[in-house]
């Protein structure tokens, strides 16, 4: 039992080295030299090679920002934030890039415990929570072992309560991991890419014009109907937009 834990840790932290690493160093060098266009090209090549990391998206966003493509920068930062929801730098730069967005949207206020719950969920990405849930599950099993087979009644009691606690940690972190995974795979958010679009009341060009939004705004996709999406703004307004006017995060 005791030899198993290091093995699991080893398996969890094991990562392989890819040839894209040299590309990454080159891209960072181009950025440092101020050749942002070349840096963008290299970062995009890394991402095309089916590889990703929050840092690559972040650096790509920076390169976009430096060339004045704020909307592309926002998309990259948002993607980076999906992979690393608790990164301070990403948050900071995203806020700066969002200052170039025309629309000022007042988000709906949320209840404090929902805010806490969301910020707790965002403490780690999906895999972070997954690792926590595996480790805590194993720990809970060990404590269960102590509870069942210990002769001492004190040890039994301690291991029982600790086991319950750790088990609930495992269950919650599993839940968080599932939420984060859903966020990453469902692509429920999108950024408007057209300079200005009119949101329609129904999924057709003939729908009533509801309101006008501009490039760089983040919207939530509620449902799809063909090429049309029912979107919701942070202030709660809803409407329909075609696929072509936005890019999913």
């Amino acid at each position, binding site marked *: *039992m005791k030899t198993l834990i290091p093995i699991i840790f080893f398996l969890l932290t094991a990562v392989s080295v890819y040839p894209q690493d040299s590309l990454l160093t080159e891209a960072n060098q181009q950025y440092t030299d101020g050749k942002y266009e070349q840096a963008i090209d290299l970062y995009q090549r890394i991402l095309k090679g089916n590889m*990703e*990391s929050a840092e690559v998206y972040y650096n790509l966003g920076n390169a976009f*920002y430096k060339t004045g493509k704020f909307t592309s920068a926002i998309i990259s930062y948002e993607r980076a934030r999906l992979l690393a929801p608790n990164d301070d730098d990403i948050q*900071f730069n995203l806020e700066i*890039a969002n200052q170039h967005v025309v629309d000022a949207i007042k988000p709906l206020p949320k209840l404090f415990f929902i805010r806490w719950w969301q910020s707790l969920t965002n403490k780690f990405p999906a895999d972070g*929570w997954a690792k926590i849930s595996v480790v805590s599950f194993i720990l809970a099993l060990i404590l269960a072992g102590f509870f069942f087979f210990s002769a001492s009644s004190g040890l039994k009691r301690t291991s029982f309560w600790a086991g319950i606690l750790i088990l609930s940690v495992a269950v919650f972190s599993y839940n968080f991991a599932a939420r984060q995974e859903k966020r990453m795979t469902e692509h429920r958010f999108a950024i408007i890419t057209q300079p200005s679009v009119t949101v329609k009341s129904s999924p057709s060009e003939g729908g009533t014009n509801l309101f006008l939004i501009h490039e760089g705004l983040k919207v939530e996709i509620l449902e799809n109907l063909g090429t049309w999406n029912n979107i919701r703004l942070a202030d709660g307004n809803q409407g329909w937009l075609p696929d072509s006017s936005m890019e999913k995060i």
Partner: protein
Amino acid sequence: MIKKLLIAVLLMAPVFFAGADNVRFIMSAPNVVSAGEQFRLSFTLNESGSDLQLPDLSNFEVLMGPSTTQSSSIQIINGKTTQELSFSYIFILRAKEEGTFTIQPASVKAGGKVYQSNELKIQVVKGQVPQQGSSSTQQQQSESQGSLSSEITKDELFVRTELDKHSVYKGEQVIATVKIYVSPTVPITGFEDVKLPSFEGFWTQDIEIPGQINFTREVHDGKIYQVGTLKKTLLFPQQTGKIRIDPFEITTTIRQQIKRQRSFFDDFFDNYRTVSARITSDPVTVTVRDLPAAPGGFYGGVGNMSFSAKPDKLETRSNEAVSFRISITGSGNLRLIEAPKVDFPADFEAYDPKEADNFNVTASGMSGTKTFEYLFIPRYAGDFSIPPVTFASFNPSTGQYAVQSSPEYKIHVEKGDDSQNTTVTSAYSKEDVKYIGKDIRYIKQNEYKLRNKAALFFGSSFYWMINLGSLFIFLLVAVIYRKKLRENANLQLVRTKKANKVARKRLREASHFMKQNKAEEFYESVLRAYWGYLSDKLNIPVADLNREKASDTLIKRGVEQDVIADFVSLLDTCEFARYAPSAAGGTPVELYGKAVALMGKLEKQIR
């Protein structure tokens, strides 16, 4: 102010003054005449001369001349006397035929030297039909209307707005000249009610012209006109596209003779009356092109400009003001140039620049110097640098931007006298960090790992394998452990159950030794019986047993205190008797009885 005193003395007598240094000999005549018209050709010399050699005048008829006039003037200004002499020779000529004729220079002898005059060009145009007869009939016809303005045709009197350029860049200067053309036959007495065009879309600057309008002769469309310049304005277009300049309107007064044959007296006195004629120029348009994409450091300057920038000192003390002067010299829209941006070090207290202009507005345009003075105060000692200032100006003649930049200036600031700094009262004043700019944070450079897209650990088979595997291992271990535990438990039970039997057997062995009177063996076997019994009964290995542990465990297992005391005293007696049999407290028979009784009690009380 210089006080001027002017005394002019006109003397008809020739005055000879030595020291008339500059001899000028000028030939003058109208530049345009019509064929058959009489005109004056005059030669003016500012010294007395002789032996005037006329040029070839075969193209003209000399009707009269030369008639000579002399004039002299003496000026005394602040005690300085200057004298001017003037000798004129005047000829009256008549042009024979149309064409442009050049009159070669004439020469004259003055003071023993021969002086040459300038050359003249005279244009002779077709003779104008004398309009006297027809105009007089018109006059009579229109008399009843009370106004004569209708008689004056557009050919005889008009205003034109002339531009030196019709296609310019935005900001490039255009000279607009408003001229009045008057036929020599129209007698103009004055102007009134001048309505200037608004010059919308332009920034304007008037050019000073003499208050008195000088009429010169000019040919326009083959006719001779008296042309006067009414207004000269510099225009700087401020917008692109076709800009229309509104018409210029002026009302002229014309004196006309009225011929009425009603009364006798009217014929005696020439009757003149003044009529006003309102004339309007045609609107003109200017095509304004936009400037090409401007480089950095363009502050609106269009023209030919040069730029310099310099601080007044490079070494200073803190809290002492330094001025940084930028001057722009040249021609163009100098007045419209904005203050160039200077990036002073953030620690400097910099003030808005002061502007100073020194412009000349002449017929050729605006030129001069514009100066910006930036005042700054270094608040802290140290070495600072003022980065180069770039200044770009658009040169319309080349169609390109000229970019100039100043060198970088290093300023050394020494620590100044703090006692002069009255504004800071506390020596430990704190300052907020100045936020100079806002930018995104830098890229992440440290080593980080790339991973496959969509290869999440969560939900992967590996993830579930670990979870289920660990659960399986747990169950396996649990089952094995439980089984082993049960086996152990059985063994223990057997040993506990047997403990009494074994102990009694040992005690019996002890009684056997007692009968044989082997005291030492007797005590030893009693002790062995007890230790063995407790070891089996309390699940403690014999090696770990001692008196304290045994009594502690017995208390825990619910044995009464006096039974334990009995047990301890029994152990004491046995151990004592083993090493000193003679000193033993009681007989082995008594001890044996005690031991058996204690064994029974223990068996009953150990739970």
